[in-house]
Structures are given as C-alpha cells and as structure tokens.
C-alpha cells in the first residue's frame, strides 16, 4: 500500500484583498489521520483545494514525499479527494464512476473490473454497480464517492466534510468504515469536519483553524486538555472560563487568584510559560465543576436552569458576581429526580488538577 507524507510551507491564498488562508505551514506524516476543524469560513476547504491542486496558491510550497508539487496539476498529484457534495458523475453508472480513475490511469479492463468490484465490496454496496448516482440514497452516494477515491489507492486522501449530510446512525457507521479503510490501506488522510466528536474520535491529530490560520495543532488530548488559547478552549467541547491572575509559577503548576477574590488557588499550565502578575483565563470543563449545597466551594451562584440531555444532566448557574459569565456543570444523569431546584443557591468547586490556565487575549 502506498502512502506519502505531506509538507506545506507558508501556503497563502488571497481573493483580492481578502486573505482566505494566511501563510500556513503543516507537516503530515505517512499514514497519519489529520482532521481540520474550525468554524465556517475559516479556510478549511481553501487549504484542501490548494493541497489537491484545484486552486493556485499565491505563495508557499506543497511537498509530497519531499517532492515539490506546488505547480503540478491536480491530475499529476496522486492526491484523492472525497468532495463534500460527493461530485459523482451523473451520466455514468456507479461502476463507471468508480472505474473512472482506473481508466484515466490506463489500467487494463479486466483488472479495472476486479478492482471496482473490490472497492464496492469494501464500502459494502456490491449490488448497486449498475445504477446511476441519482438512484442512490445520500449515504450510498457518499460511500460510492469513497469507493471511487480508494479504488486507485492514492497516496493521500482529502475528505471535505464527507459525512456532513448523513444522519447520526449512518454517520457512526461510516466513521467506522473510514477508520477501517484507513487501518487497512494505511493511507494518509486529511479530513475536514464540523463535528468535534468526530474529530476527537477519529484523528491522530487535529488542526484547529480560525480566520484563515492554524489556531492549534496537536493530538485530541492536547487540544482538549491543554488548549493554547481561549478560542480553542471554547471551540472544542464546552468550557467554563474564569478570569484570574498569576501569583507564582513553580514546577508543579501555578498559584493563582480568581478575579475579585483574595483566596489563592492552584491551577495547571497548558504548556505555555507564564509570568507572575499576568492575567489569565482559567478553564474548568463542565464535568469537572462540582456543585454542592454547602457554601464551602470557591464560588457561589444561583441555579438558573437544569437540562437533561440523555446521558448527561447540565446545570446552568449564574455566579453571584454580576460581571461573571454564566457557568455550566454536568454530571451523569440518574433516574432519581434532580436534587436541585431552580433559584437555589449553590456552591461550586473543582480539583486544582482540572483547572487549566490559559493565556488571556486572542493573540498567540
């Protein structure tokens, strides 16, 4: 099975004065599964089209296995793309669609037929070979698009929100399928999604983009537990962000003081270096925010709302200090009725190991 590494250096794309992609550098290892995550318009599709050769960069370089492909046309790159809208050819049968890349590569007929059948087997749709794309359901079309991409074993596969249109169940199935294909073929995959959960479960690394630039690149754990910016903490999973000031930095963590409070508390760093006196944001994930009746916590507030979303119950709490944002705490739902009443005064606490310090401000 072929597989290639990808290196992107200072890649930039502008539309007139608008910078769709600020100079971006990125290394993707052979066989890696990298997910591009980010809000709408953050430049994910732009980056993919530049890598695939479907758009020309204004600056920068693209290297596949250390060979410069910046100016080679799409058809010479050996990079497969699974398009967001599937882009199946409407005038060809499923079979012909899948065989198309083989035909372009002048693969012998018998061989092409065998490989097409194999690819259909892989996506578990051998019975639709003779149909036209419009005769398939959305999920089936999606799988055909995938089959058409894997059939010629490109060294790198780019997938742009490939599961965007599917229902939850089909999406879960397809995720497993894609992971299986990734495991079996060991292809390098760059995957775009809006779904954080999908990103967390599938990827070796996640590249979080914001406003045409990389905000943070790392393993899912890195991004979740050690966000480098408020944006990352906010985007990936729910988080409570509290203003605080650094008192002192030591080997184990930081001494901090929450805004408007005098009692010091502890926090862990996110890998960045802090200096005493620096303003920071303290991130506590909802499931780590403990709620108690007693007034022995670090903060107090009033319960505003209780929401049960399946396995988790969420409590929304307005801190008593007027200028603090609303907080959310979550714990596993139990069959017994909620022990809290709306309007009730509660106290909030957390383990210092779950409180992560993040540099304040949007810049890096």
């Amino acid at each position, binding site marked *: 099975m072929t597989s290639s590494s990808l290196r992107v*250096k*200072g890649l930039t794309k502008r539309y007139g004065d608008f910078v769709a992609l600020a*100079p971006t*550098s990125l290394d993707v290892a052979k066989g890696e599964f990298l997910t591009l995550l980010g809000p709408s318009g953050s430049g994910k599709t732009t980056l993919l*089209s530049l890598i*695939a*050769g*479907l758009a*020309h960069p*204004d*600056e*920068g*370089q693209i290297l596949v296995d250390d060979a410069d492909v910046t*100016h080679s*046309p*799409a*058809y010479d*790159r*050996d*990079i*497969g*793309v699974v*398009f967001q*809208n599937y*882009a*199946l*050819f*409407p*005038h060809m049968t499923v079979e012909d669609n899948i065989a*198309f*890349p083989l*035909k*372009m*590569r002048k693969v012998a007929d018998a061989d092409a037929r065998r490989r097409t059948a194999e690819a259909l087997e892989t996506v578990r749709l051998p019975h639709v070979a003779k149909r*036209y794309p*419009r005769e398939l359901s959305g999920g089936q079309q999606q799988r055909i698009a995938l089959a*058409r*991409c894997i059939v*010629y074993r490109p060294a790198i596969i780019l997938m742009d929100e490939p599961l965007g249109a599917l229902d939850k169940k089909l999406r879960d199935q397809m995720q497993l399928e894609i992971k299986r294909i990734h495991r079996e073929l060991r292809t390098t995959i760059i995957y775009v999604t809006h779904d954080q959960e999908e990103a967390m479960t599938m990827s070796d690394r996640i590249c979080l983009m914001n406003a045409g630039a990389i905000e943070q690149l790392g393993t899912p754990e890195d991004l979740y537990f050690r966000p480098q910016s408020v944006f990352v903490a906010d985007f990936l999973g729910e988080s409570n962000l509290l203003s605080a000031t650094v008192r002192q930095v030591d080997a184990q963590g930081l001494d901090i003081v929450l805004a408007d409070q005098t009692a010091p508390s502890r926090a862990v760093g996110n890998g960045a270096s802090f200096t005493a006196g620096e303003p920071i944001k303290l991130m506590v994930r909802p499931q780590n925010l403990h709620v108690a009746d007693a007034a022995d916590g670090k903060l107090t507030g009033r319960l505003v709302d209780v929401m049960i979303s399946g396995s988790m119950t969420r409590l929304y709490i307005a801190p008593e200090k007027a200028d603090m944002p609303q907080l959310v705490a979550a714990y596993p739902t139990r069959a017994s009725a909620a022990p809290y009443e709306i309007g009730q005064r509660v106290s909030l606490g957390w383990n210092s190991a779950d409180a992560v310090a993040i540099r304040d401000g949007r810049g890096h």
Partner: protein
Amino acid sequence: MALAKAPAIESGQLRTATRSRARSQAWTWAAMGGPLVLLLVLFLVYPVGQLLLLSIHNDSGFTLAPYRQLFASSVYIDVLLITLKISLVTTLVCVVTGYPIAYLISVVGKERKATLLFWVLLSFWTSFLVRAFAWIVLLGRNGVINKLLLSLGIISSPASLLYNFGSVLVGMVNALLPLAVLTMLSVMENIDRNLPRAAATLGARPGMAFWKIYFPLSLPGVAAAGIMVFVTAIGFFIVPALLGGRRETMITQLIIDQVQQTLNWGFAGAISVLLLIVVLIVFAAYDRLLGLSTMTGAAAPRSVAPSRLAGPVQRIGDAVLTLLGMISDRIILALPSRRRDRNPDQAGLGLQAFVWTMLIIISAPTLLMIPLSFGTGGLNWPPQGFTLHWYETVLHSPVWTQAFLRSLLVGLGTGALAMLIGTPAAFLLVRSNIPGKAAWLAFILSPIVVPRMIIAVGMFYVFASMGLVGSAFGLILGHTVVAVPYVVMTMMAVLRNYDTRLDHAAQSLGARPFATLRHITFPILGAGMFSSFLFAFATSFDELTIALFATGGLNATLPKQFWDEVTLQVSPVIAAVSTCLFIFMGLLIFVAERLRRRAAAR
C-alpha cells in the same frame, strides 16, 4: 524564525511562476475568445461602419446630401413614425397577452407545461414567412375568416381584411408573441414559488400576493421581453411587406428599395443611421430605467431597479400595485365561493381559456393551411378534393430542392461554426476571471441589438468587395454573426448550471484537461450544446434578411426562394412548401425535446 529567509526566496520564484502563468493565461484567453471577436469585427463592425461611412462620403469626398434628401420631405419621417407606431403597439400587445401565457406555463404541472410549451415552441420555430403567408390565406377574400363571417350572416359580401394596419398588427403579434412568452418565462421560472405562498401565510389575499409579490419579481422579464420584441419589430420587413398596404411601409423596406432598386448606398446608409439612432435611444432609455444586464434575464438585479427608478416613481408604482391587488381581491370575493377556495396553485378557468385562445390564434393559420395544400380548389376555403399535385410540383422543381439543400448546408455550417466559436467564448465568460466581462458580453450580444437589415446591407457591400456574394461560405459567415449571440447566451446559461466540482473531481481522479472535457464536461453539457446548435441551425434556416441580398437564382436559400415566389404570386405550391417546412420544424422540436428529456432524466 529560521524559516524567515526561505519564504522570501520562494516567493521570488513564485512571482516568476505567477508571471509565466499570467502570460499563458492571456494566450488561452486569446485562443478562446479571439475567433469570435475577429468574426464580429470583420463581419459586423467593419460592414456596419462601412455603411455608415457611405452615408457621409461619396466619390467626391465628404457629403451630407443623403441626409438633406432624408429630411427634405416628410415622407421618410412619416415612415419612421409609422415604424415606431407599429413596433410599439406590437410590443404592447405581445407583452400584455404574453404575460398570462408565460405565467400559466410557469405554474402548471409538468405534463401540462410540456403541452403548452410545445405549442409556443412550434409557433416560435415556424418560419416567419410561413406564418405571414398563412395569414394572407386566412384573411383573404375567400379565406376562412371571411367565409365564417359570411356564413354567420355578419357580413353580406367579403370584407377586405388584408393590407391594412390591423392585418400588419395581427401578423406582427403572431410573429413575435412566442419570443415575448419565452423571454418572460425564463424569468418567471426562476421566481421562488414559495414567495406568494409565504405572502399568503402573512395575510395577503391571492390578488394582493400576485400584484405585490409575484408581479414585481416578474418585471425584469417583462422589460426584457419588451425590448427584445421592440428591437426585432423595428427591423422587421416580412410582415409589413406581405400583409401591409402602402401606408404600412416600414423603414427597413425603404432600405431594401434603396439597395435593390436604385443601388443608392449613401441614402441606404443615411436611413440606417436614422434607424440605428432610434434603436440606440431606446436602449439608452432602457438602460437608464432598468439596467442592460436585465436583458439576458439571467440575474435580475433587484438592487438595480429600485435605485434607478426615482423615489416618487417607485411610490406611485407601489400605490398602483396595491390598488390592483385590492381590486383583484374584491373581484375574487364577488365571485361564487367555489372559485375562492380552490387550490391556490391551480390556475383559474378564465386564465386557461384565455391562454388556449391565444395559442390557437397563433397556431391556427399554419394548421389551416395544411388541408389547403392538398386541395384542388386553390387557396379558397373550404378545401376541395384531394391531390398531391402541389407536392409533386415542389419535389420536381430543381429550384425548390436546390434551395432546400442549400439551406440545409448553410444551416448545418452555421450551427457548427457558431458552436465552434461561441462555446469557448461562453466558457471564457463564465469560468475565467477575464477583465471587462460586461463589456465583452455587450459586444458579443450586439448583433441582436443592431437591426438585422443594417447588418445585412453592410455585409452585402463588404461581401461584394470580397467576392463572397452568392457563396455558401459567405452566407455561413453572415448567419454565424447573427446566430452566435444566441449560442453564447444559451451556453452561458448551461455552464452556469454546471457543477464545476465535477471537473475538479475528474482532475483529482487523474483526468487531464482534455480527458475531463471528453468524458465529463461534454457528455453532461451534451443536451445543452445540442439545443444551442439547433438554435443556430434554425436561426440560419429561417434567415431571410442577409440571404435577401447575399443570394439569388440557383444559390437561393429556402427563405429567399419562398420570398421571391410569395412576392410574385400566392399559390398552393407555397402552401405545400409551408406544410413541409412546418412538419420539418415540428419534427426537429420533437427530437430536440426527446433528447433534452433523456438527458434531464439522468
């Protein structure tokens, strides 16, 4: 930071790469758009320029004599006024009666839509000559109408219905109504049908919803139809020449006389200048009011219309629409309740009756001519006996068969050349970021704007100097000039609907540009390309103005032969030829529609 230097070097290399890419891009643009520009410069700009020059320049240098002649008496100004009057009334009638037809077609279900559209298209594609001839027969002393009125006892002796303003108007409306309907339809089909429904949920009664929501949205189509009909009408000569009397002479007929009878190029040029100025004034007014971009009907720019219309005008318009809405709702309320709670998507009976009446009026003359072509009683109604004599005469006459073959050859040539030149230009206008797109588009569409007669006379003059008069090749070039804007327009519409991601997909799967075109782009665009080809073919097949001057004798095309015959005498032979032409066009539409549907089913 260690990388800080490297990007600088790379971007230097990149600039060179960008520059060389820009250069190759310029070459691509030139290769794709060049042939069309060359064609238009050589066979539109140059000939028309020549003609205009001839009006102020004779053997002895600069002169204004033709213009002095033009304004010396009121004769020519009168002709101009009559031309304007006929064109304006025709436009008004076409738009007002065409609107309900287009509306009905845009709202009915798939099956009924196909039927209605078939009749409009059949009429649209039937030769102007055939339709005008059919009216001669219909309105004649022994025609259907007179016979009908006599038998009903309304008149006691045959009335003379021909050769007056009424007959010209009937012929003109018949000729141009299908164009008006199709133009308005293209806009109406793009109006979101949920909007009037949304208005209904917001409390608007049907009348109000129509006048305040649907009607304003359809106005760009009305405007486009109006200008298309007017410009075609003002350059028309077939209908006034065949159906009008001396008092319905139109300005284009004067130009023909000057060229064919007196060979007075200077005077023909002067009349052309007059005509051109009138057309340009109309276009300038249109542009001021609505913006020229609405003409293609493509993107009806909602922002343009309100800003161009001054505030008070807009307020008055709004008040009128509100009033109309209220009146309609009152009328609907006054009707029996059964009518009120019918399904809002179902068209009213009155509307349906009106539309079918109009469709019958525009199709009937041609259909009624068919039995006459098999009769032994000449062109008198009712048809008598049965004979194939007229058809045998046509088939055995080398003049007619030659003319048919000639037209077929020229039509196919025009279709092929227009596609060859027009398709790349359409690609360029839709897909590339070539600067000055709007200007290029205006230039490419100019053969529609400049009255056909001016193009034809100018071309005749230039062809004469090149020895192209009477040659099929010259005629193909000439017809391509007038057909190519339609090809570019339809191909642009087709390309806009085409999902370019399919091309991207093909390229990412390893298809080179040529393979992408061959396996993906062209097969998917096939139906659209075929219909543009047909459009070009039909334009040429029915073209008379250019052929009028550029052909003659044994190299006459079918319309030219038809014209020569019909201006000599009205005979059953012509009814036979008309029937053949009608059936030929009917088959063509049928086949085209079949192909289109098969492609759409994919």
